[in-house]
């Protein structure tokens, strides 16, 4: 039977897509972002993860279906990196789709294109992290390949009509410099079809592996506002910051 390795399930999520949502954080991630606030979700084989059969997982999260329906919400699969378990995710999303539930994938997109393609028909909304568009910056902060995520997003935009919300986590000391913000803005402005864009504040605590001390990923408000302005100056319309 198809299963999913689940790190955590969170009910009443208000910022992972429209309406009231249940977010399933899947175990395993392809990136190693130093600001990650949930590093326990990285190893795919973490023994603390729960292995769910798909019908059981659907039943578990459908406890809040009445509130999804009432709010125009639904289910968000996040991580970790949900697309690492693309096969299970595709089957699970299909199951949820049969129940008429709205389905969101929150991804960093650093997986083989085939995984994106496998899941894409079952997605109602993508939340796509763009942390950087510069190969070196991206690799230094996340350990991953920027071309993979950018190319995958372009495929989604070109090959499907599914709505996409690009989420840019603004991380102190990583992508907050004006040049980097402008590069991201330029890249987003050139996308083949419109997307929603949301800038996210970094978390208070991250852990820089190169430093022994805890380091904050959060920008001071004026700097964050400056990054937002850079994006706006490039003609981008930004969604309101979730409080």
């Amino acid at each position: 039977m198809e299963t999913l390795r689940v790190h955590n399930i969170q009910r009443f999520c208000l910022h992972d897509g429209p309406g009231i949502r249940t977010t399933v954080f899947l175990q395993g991630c392809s990136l190693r972002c130093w600001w990650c606030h949930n590093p326990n979700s990285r190893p795919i084989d973490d023994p603390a993860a729960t292995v769910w059969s798909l019908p059981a997982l659907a039943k578990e999260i459908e406890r809040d279906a009445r509130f999804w329906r009432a709010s125009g919400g639904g289910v968000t699969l996040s991580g970790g990196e949900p697309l690492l378990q693309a096969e299970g995710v595709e089957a699970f999303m299909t199951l949820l789709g049969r129940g008429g539930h709205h389905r969101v994938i929150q991804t960093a997109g650093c997986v083989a294109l085939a995984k994106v393609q496998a899941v894409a028909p079952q997605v109602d909304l993508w939340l796509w992290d763009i942390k950087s568009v510069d190969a070196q910056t991206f690799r230094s902060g996340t350990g991953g390949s920027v071309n993979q995520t950018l190319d995958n997003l372009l495929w989604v935009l070109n090959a499907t009509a599914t709505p996409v919300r690009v989420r840019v986590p603004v991380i102190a000391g990583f992508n907050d410099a004006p040049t980097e913000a402008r590069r991201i803005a330029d890249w987003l402005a050139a996308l083949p079809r419109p997307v929603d864009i949301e800038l996210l504040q970094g978390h208070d605590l991250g852990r820089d592996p190169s430093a022994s001390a805890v380091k904050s990923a959060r920008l001071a408000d004026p700097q964050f506002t400056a990054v937002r302005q850079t994006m706006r100056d490039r003609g981008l319309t930004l969604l309101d910051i979730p409080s």
Partner: protein
Amino acid sequence: MIATATMPTKIALAPILAAAQDRLFGAADSVCLERARLVTEAWQRYADDPVPVKRAKALAHILANMTLDSDTNPIFAGCMSSGPRKWMLTPEHGLDVGGQVVIEHDDLRGFLNDKVPDDLRAFWRGRSGTGGLGHFAIDQSVVVDRGLRSVLDELAACEQDGDAQQREYRAAMRISIEAVIDWAHRWAKQARIKAQQTDDPAVAACHLRVAEACQNVPEHPARNLFEALQAMALVHLAMHIEGHHMSVSIGLPDRALARFGDEAAADPDAAANLCAAFALKVAENAQMGKASMTQCFTIGGADHRGIDQTNALTFAFLEGFDRVSVSDPHLFIRWHRATPEAVKNKVAKMLSRGRSMPLVVTDEPTAGGFVDAGIAAPDAWNYCVIGCNELGIPGLLFDTAMTIGTSINELEELNRVLLDDARSQDVADMPALLSLLEDRCVAVLEPGLRKRREAKARIAAAFPTPLSSALMEGGPQRGCDLLMGMPYDIAGCYNRGFSNAVNALAAIEQLVFENKTLTMSTLIASLRENLADASVVDQLAAAPKWGNDDDRADRWAIALLELRKRVWDRLVAMGLPRALVCHVVRSLHHLDGRRIAASADGRFAGTPVGDSLGAVCGSTTQGPTAMLASVLKLDARRYFSGGTNLNLTLPPSQAAPPVIRALIDGFCGDGGQELQINVLDVAQLRQAREHPERYRDLVVRVAGLSARFIELSDTEQLELIARAEAAAEHA
């Protein structure tokens, strides 16, 4: 003779409303001895009259001689004492401050000790007693559409019917009704004088409008919206002056005022201001100054055919309550499948802003529970909220909301089984434990229920309320006190301690019978020692908790309610009436907690029990939807046909109007019954404690009452902060 109908006067009310609000909420509590003096005089003067007549003459004496305070809120006539927040005393029912009021406002402890003259205390010693229980709503159509003159006509028509007692009671009704009519005329006369004395033309216009209205209402049918509200205000306050203590509710004001819907629709702003001023007038109820009198307005909802009854007045009351920051009266909105979107969105907006009103009650399970109890569908769908969150029907049914002699705290009874019944040490499984609890509940409820009628008769004989009784449907014809005869006689039973009891049962099952990490005797010994053993506390704390959508705990909620069903089946088999159960708190969860020893849910002795049917504060880990899902496992129609209260606290970050809309829609659309949403900001509450002067208008839902946060006791303020902190943890 009824004067020619006049056009409603248009007056710019906003500044007058603001000033009235300042006067009322800016006043410190003090005492007005007028009523106490006047009732004492009457009690002496009419000592030889039959009690109902004496009571009626006392009302007439008070209304004829009391100061008429036209200054606090000049928009409507009506007051209970000589100034804002001056306590009106009812020495007939005692001269002490109630325990729960002291919990809510600790500065009121002993408030009356040095304010009541010795001669008054001496006179009432041995004369005062239980009475004036309130907890009803009258048939407002008598006041609004027919006028009190019609009641006098009805009384005259059946004057000679029945026995001497009934005839005597009708005489008392007549005296009381005439007294209210004369009172209105006093107000009219004074208002004309006041109009000449003021320099403010708008205030003068208010007085003149009052003068014209009070010449007509409540004696005759109201001719416009203002008169209708004026009539309701005078009668409502007069019933308190008659001697009702608290929880006299307005009923269904938008339905009562439906024939003025066009007038309200033509000028919604003016209608909203009138409703705001009316709410403020009701807030002048001065029996206990700033303490809540739990007066309810219930608006919206459907009738028994499912037809939505929302009208322009529904919106006017919503908007009116949004314009003034009254904490009491309480506004309830009836929610049903076809509640208009505009109403739902307005409700969500008000709650989102932290207004803590309206409270929501759902038609289908509520009216359905009444139908199941044998109430005719058209009446059942005319239900209203009474008191904290109890249910009744205006003019038809109120016993369900008053519950003389029938109250049960399930945690307390479980504790007594564990601590006082030696058999509990040896129970082999959960069914055996529940069986002991069932026997205990039967034993607790039986005597009160058996003496219910006798207790009511005693109160009705000592402290009858002929005015209120005359305003119930068929009251004049019955010629008896409302306690002794109403169209529906259905008992109610108060229930508390439910959430803690569920947690206690879940813990016992897991630790004693499943994991066997505790024996029953160790647990009981530990409870006796107020949980001195930290390892026991840790185990109890880690056990499943109600309100997390966790079946390991939630099934004990259902088990407890099924147990209660069996208890009532046994009581009914003993020839006793079946009561409708209402989970009700006000702020008794503190008083209850002080009395109850340490309990198997990990609660220490003396600490509060749960503040509602929802999760015990601090015991949720899964957020608000999980708590609502837990409660939705309980069939309200089957188990809580007398009502429930469910407090849900949200932090502002989770309380956008669409989110609140969805929570209410999801809950009410799936069988949820009552929902009280409180949006609390921890930082704001802390600020309000530091700088109360800046937060005068901060109204919060405490438990079965709403209050101005800055006026609450430390106990209540800290409890609300704890709830806000617990809610913020999930944000």
